[in-house]
């Protein structure tokens, strides 16, 4: 169900105030971009997917009845578009690697070391997440970061709740094993 605030914005958009759509872009672009980028592993392509998904949502707003959350609807479009793009990528065999590290401006010199360690940890975690399959990546991110229910995730990924549960369990286990192996490897190297 859409919340009252979103309902108000939806009404404004349907009434012709297109600028009100920026509320939805602001609120959901980060998660949408994360879903896309983790699946296609290419920032430019992820941008295209997210942009197309938002535009698609805008044009289909009159058909959106508010029975589910706007986010569920949007993430579903993003997820499936990203999977399609991934299939095309695999077909053309032009896999691109990417550096997932964002650019940060370091203003405080004393925090450089902390930040470097932080970024290193982040990089390790992100590469471990990338080792999961696209479905598991999406499920684990939506469950632990966006705190979506299993039912909502099932709707987005278009599988049953029990399959979401199984995949979530597998994803947790795999993530733990990957990170544990990494720590053990680092310890052996020292």
């Amino acid at each position: 169900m859409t919340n009252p605030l979103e309902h108000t914005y939806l009404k404004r958009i349907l009434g012709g105030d297109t600028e009100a759509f920026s509320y939805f872009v602001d609120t959901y672009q980060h998660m949408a971009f994360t879903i896309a980028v983790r699946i296609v592993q290419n920032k430019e392509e992820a941008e295209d997917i997210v942009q197309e998904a938002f535009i698609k949502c805008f044009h289909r707003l009159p058909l959106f009845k508010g029975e589910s959350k706007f986010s569920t609807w949007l993430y579903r479009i993003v997820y499936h578009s990203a999977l399609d793009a991934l299939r095309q990528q695999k077909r053309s065999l032009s896999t691109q690697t990417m550096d997932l590290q964002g650019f940060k401006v370091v203003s405080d010199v004393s925090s450089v070391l902390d930040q470097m360690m932080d970024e290193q940890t982040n990089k390790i975690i992100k590469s471990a997440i990338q080792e999961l399959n696209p479905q598991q990546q999406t499920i684990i991110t939506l469950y632990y970061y966006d705190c979506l229910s299993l039912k909502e995730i099932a709707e987005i990924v278009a599988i049953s709740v029990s399959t979401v549960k199984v995949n979530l369990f597998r994803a947790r286990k795999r993530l733990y094993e990957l990170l544990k192996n990494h720590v053990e490897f680092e310890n052996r190297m020292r």
Partner: protein
Amino acid sequence: MSEAQEHELDKFSRKVIQKAGLETPPEYLKQNIMHAIHAGHTYSPIKGLLTPKSKIAIGVLVIGFCILIGFLPQTKEVWEISGALSEFTGLMERISNQIPKTFFYGILAFGLLISIQIGYLKQRINRN
């Protein structure tokens, strides 16, 4: 895996995923989306095939027609209530003399079928 282990794994995963955070989209992404929406994509609300008023009107007509044909006695006294009505009923009578009743029922059934199909098709279009 024991319940305690599973709980630990759950805690660990939550921490890890929250530590990884979300990817930051470039600032121009929002601008691009809003620009695309403002520019070539002017919003045009999709109208239903039948407005609620016309649905009610069709419904009333169909029900009225059914009553006229099926339930009212076919005697002249009843039909000649007022001038306009009697003209209409006279016309109906003339038509019913020329065209068999089954043909009338056929038209009625056909009309109903179309009305139902419009609703059904609209639902299908909305879902896609």
